[in-house]
């Protein structure tokens, strides 16, 4: 059968099935394959908190979105193709399928029982309710069993390969090569080649099947990203943070110590760094989050870049120790991969609602630097930046990452080592001039002198300290002075970070002001608005405390400021407090990233009102 091959600027797919259906894997493979062809890719995994919920349930659905194209910033608003391995995964995801989009279903997942669990009254594959879409339904399980006949493996194990059948179909539809996945399977199952082999067979079978299914009317190719020369890889924000720490350690020649307690969605940073033993990274899986940060504080006193990683509930637990680290003035990087709160919330879904806690959450007068990466690459950059600030200013730095960029993948152009920032970190060793709390005149930082240095023996602590000596002091004026020093230190950082930059005009009617992990959606929305000629500007913050020095000026340049956040207005509140100007809020706490289109619609409605 010969079909028209259509080139697309951008495609969005979603692989959806039960938690045990291997959808995360399938999605990852698809994105790796397209990426290796030079296409820009952005992905987003969406899975339940439970490991393997009962089969076929709505809450057990696990999905993986892939957005691929010339230049993509998000995992996409609406899908062109939905692969639904069962009825529940169809139900949960259909909302976001484009009209006219393709649905591939595995009919084995549409038994009466599963239809019931999915709360379908009638079978959507048969009742015509999917007539707006291109439905390609088939019983993948049967095809798999047909294909793999003389295997020593049990039927159950064989049926588990069905995700590769679906993947093979997707590869056919998008004219993609099978060899990357084939190689990967061989590598992965090198100790059990039979498993590798049947998966590969099934992958090809899916491909072949698609070729012969006449319901597939077209195939597609995806426009290449015009990649700059260089090396590329797929990476999640969590991986990028781990990489950034190794890079910071190598550049500065200062070792990294991670003290951490597992918590979703931050744990991958611990996993990755635990693998990096050969790069000199020490990881300590502590008994709890308090011990996580405390062990890092101990290591920092010992001359290490102390790092701790966590998510919301863990950040809440670290509050007291953060206060200690700031009082002891030790360099520490505190990484919070935000998730839906409060309390246990929805552990696997993204939100930006820990900003208040990061900004204000310590007893006493206790300001701390707060940074937030915007993309996977930015995770790499900003964690190095956090190390730079922590060590230069002798201060704990909070890095607010988020579920979206942390777990989704993006294509990373691997930076040239020569382009990486210099990190000139030094220990103090001079006996003659040393005083534990003698401060640098510019940074207000104190010297980092570490045990093992002869003659510099000194004591630090959480009691208010006397200026210079660091001895305990309950002197009234001294406390006032030290409180001010600690605040000035944070303010001083403003002189040492890049100005905020604005997409679009520097002044105007409307500024979109974002921060952190929403960048992709906001930038996509702004790109669209801009290309349609709407007069709107966009500024995205990576530094939240202190703010870039030019932020006040930027804000004054606009009649209205819209602050979209995945929370109820936390940055908005801080902006109001710091700059005493009002801002418009746009808030979403639905445990998912903004869709670009939602931002666009919001902006358009504001612009319209302005035009009335």
């Amino acid at each position: 059968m010969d079909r028209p091959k259509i080139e697309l600027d951008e495609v969005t797919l979603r692989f959806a099935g039960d938690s045990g259906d291997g959808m995360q894997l399938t999605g990852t493979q698809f994105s790796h394959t397209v990426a290796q062809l030079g296409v820009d890719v952005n992905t987003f995994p969406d899975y339940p908190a439970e490991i393997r919920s009962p089969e076929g349930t709505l809450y057990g659905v696990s999905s993986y979105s892939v957005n691929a194209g010339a230049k993509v910033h998000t995992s996409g608003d609406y899908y062109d193709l939905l692969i639904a391995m069962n009825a529940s995964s169809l139900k949960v995801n259909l909302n976001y399928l484009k009209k006219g989009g393709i649905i591939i279903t595995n009919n084995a997942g549409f038994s009466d029982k599963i239809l019931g669990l999915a709360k379908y009254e009638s079978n959507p594959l048969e009742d015509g309710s999917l007539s707006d879409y291109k439905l390609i339904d088939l019983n993948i399980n049967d095809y798999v069993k047909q294909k793999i006949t003389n295997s020593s493996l049990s039927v159950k194990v064989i049926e588990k390969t069905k995700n590769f059948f679906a993947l093979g179909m997707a590869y056919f539809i998008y004219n993609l090569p099978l060899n990357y996945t084939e190689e990967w399977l061989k590598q992965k199952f090198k100790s059990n080649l039979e498993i590798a082999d049947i998966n590969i067979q099934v992958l090809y079978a899916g491909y072949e099947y698609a070729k012969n299914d006449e319901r597939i009317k077209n195939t597609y190719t995806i426009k290449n990203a015009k990649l700059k020369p260089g090396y590329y890889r797929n990476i999640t924000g969590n991986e990028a943070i781990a990489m950034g720490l190794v890079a910071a350690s190598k550049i500065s020649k200062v070792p990294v110590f991670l003290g951490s307690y597992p918590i979703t969605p931050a744990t991958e940073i611990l996993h990755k760094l635990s693998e990096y033993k050969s790069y000199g990274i020490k990881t300590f899986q502590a008994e709890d989050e308090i011990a996580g940060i405390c062990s890092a504080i101990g290591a920092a006193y010992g001359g290490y870049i102390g790092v701790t990683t966590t998510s919301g509930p863990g950040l809440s637990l670290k509050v007291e120790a953060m206060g200690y680290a700031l009082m002891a003035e030790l360099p520490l990087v505190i990484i919070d991969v935000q998730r839906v709160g409060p309390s246990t919330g929805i552990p696997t879904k993204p939100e930006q609602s820990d900003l208040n806690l990061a900004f204000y959450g310590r007893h006493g007068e206790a300001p701390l630097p707060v940074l937030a990466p915007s993309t996977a690459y930015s995770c790499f950059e900003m964690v190095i930046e956090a190390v730079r600030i922590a060590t230069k200013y002798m201060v704990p730095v909070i890095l607010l990452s988020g579920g979206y960029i942390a777990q989704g993948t993006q294509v990373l152009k691997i930076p040239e080592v020569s382009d990486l920032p210099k990190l000139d970190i030094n220990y103090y060793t001079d006996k003659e001039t040393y005083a534990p709390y003698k401060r640098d005149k510019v940074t207000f930082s104190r010297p980092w002198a570490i045990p093992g240095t002869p003659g510099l023996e000194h004591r630090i602590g959480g009691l208010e300290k006397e200026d210079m000596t660091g001895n305990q002091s309950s002197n009234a004026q001294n406390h006032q002075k030290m409180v001010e020093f600690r605040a000035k230190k944070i303010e001083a950082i403003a002189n040492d970070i890049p100005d905020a930059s604005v997409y679009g005009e520097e002044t105007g009617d409307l500024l979109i002001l974002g921060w952190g992990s929403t960048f992709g959606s906001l930038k996509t929305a702004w790109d669209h608005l801009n290309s349609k000629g709407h007069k709107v500007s966009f500024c995205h913050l990576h530094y939240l405390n202190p703010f870039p020095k030019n932020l006040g000026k930027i804000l004054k340049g606009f009649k209205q400021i819209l602050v979209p956040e995945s929370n109820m207005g936390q940055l908005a509140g801080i902006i109001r407090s710091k700059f005493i100007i009002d801002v418009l809020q746009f808030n979403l706490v639905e445990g998912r990233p903004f869709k670009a289109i939602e931002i666009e619609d919001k902006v358009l409605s504001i612009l319209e009102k302005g035009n009335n």
Partner: protein
Amino acid sequence: MKYKLDEIVDYKSESSFEYTSKELKSGSDVRWCAGCGDFSIINQVQKVLPTLGIPKEKITFVSGIGCSSRFPYYMGTYGMHTIHGRALAIASGLKFARPDLSVWVPTGDGDCLSIGGNHFIHACRRNIDINVIMFNNEIYSLTKGQYSPTSKPGQVTKSSPFGVVDNPFNPSSLALGSGASFVARAVDMDIKTLANVLERAAKHKGISFIEVYTNCVIFNNGVFENFRDKKLSKEYTITLEHNKPLVFGAENDKGIKFEGHKPVVFNINEGNNSINDAIVHNEKDSTLAFILSNMTYNSDLPRPVGIFQAIELPTYDEVAIEQINVAKKKIGDDFDLETFLRGDDYWQGQ
């Protein structure tokens, strides 16, 4: 890869291997109450440390909060006065980061066993090479006299005006139950045992836990009278010595023997008894250690002091660092950052 730190880790010509007890004083006024038992402990620590061959700048004291936890301020070594209950968590990070350091944690019965209980049992379990000196005065002193997890049932304190209703921990049993490799007890006034135990703890690889009975003159004066008083202590305590029979009493006339697997007191000079019936202490015997520790709140038996257990177990710091060293060897002395950043799964754009 050579870290900047490595220069500091190495001994230098200025390293101070030789120093006096006096040089171990920080020069800050010691702010404990006159008569506080803590003085005796700091004196012994300052006496023992110079004999160990550890350069002064390699010693770090890490404490939490409490009267006893002010300890580091008074030592002329490196020191951290940290957060209530968190000293062992911080010290664990420090020791794993810096195995070259001699890390000491002076702590209180509240700091170590109440708010700090979790870090304590995990440090014991991991057998990380830290020396813990727990000043047990059976009271929260710095907060002016509330009962602690070692206070006795019925004890009247500010927060137990009708008497304590909790059962106390037996700290040595808790340490043993948590897997600690070195567990000992001493009394502030018995400086001989105290000095001995401190020295042994310093030399022990892995966690060393020393409980010291300490008199708080202000809020719990006299609780340990039986064990502190020169005369009474002869009857009320028994000193554990490796390979020696368990005997005590003013005239060394009493011993501890087994009845079944239960320890009982017997009079050495009575009837058919002889010193040979006495249990011979063995620091390497974990079961015996627990049995002896279990004597603690048994009023029919003397209170053991000395070393309950001193066994060799893999230490966290050694094993973890060995693992890193092995891993490092695989990639050679250094690594190429570019290769690292690229990873295995990269591709080229042109």
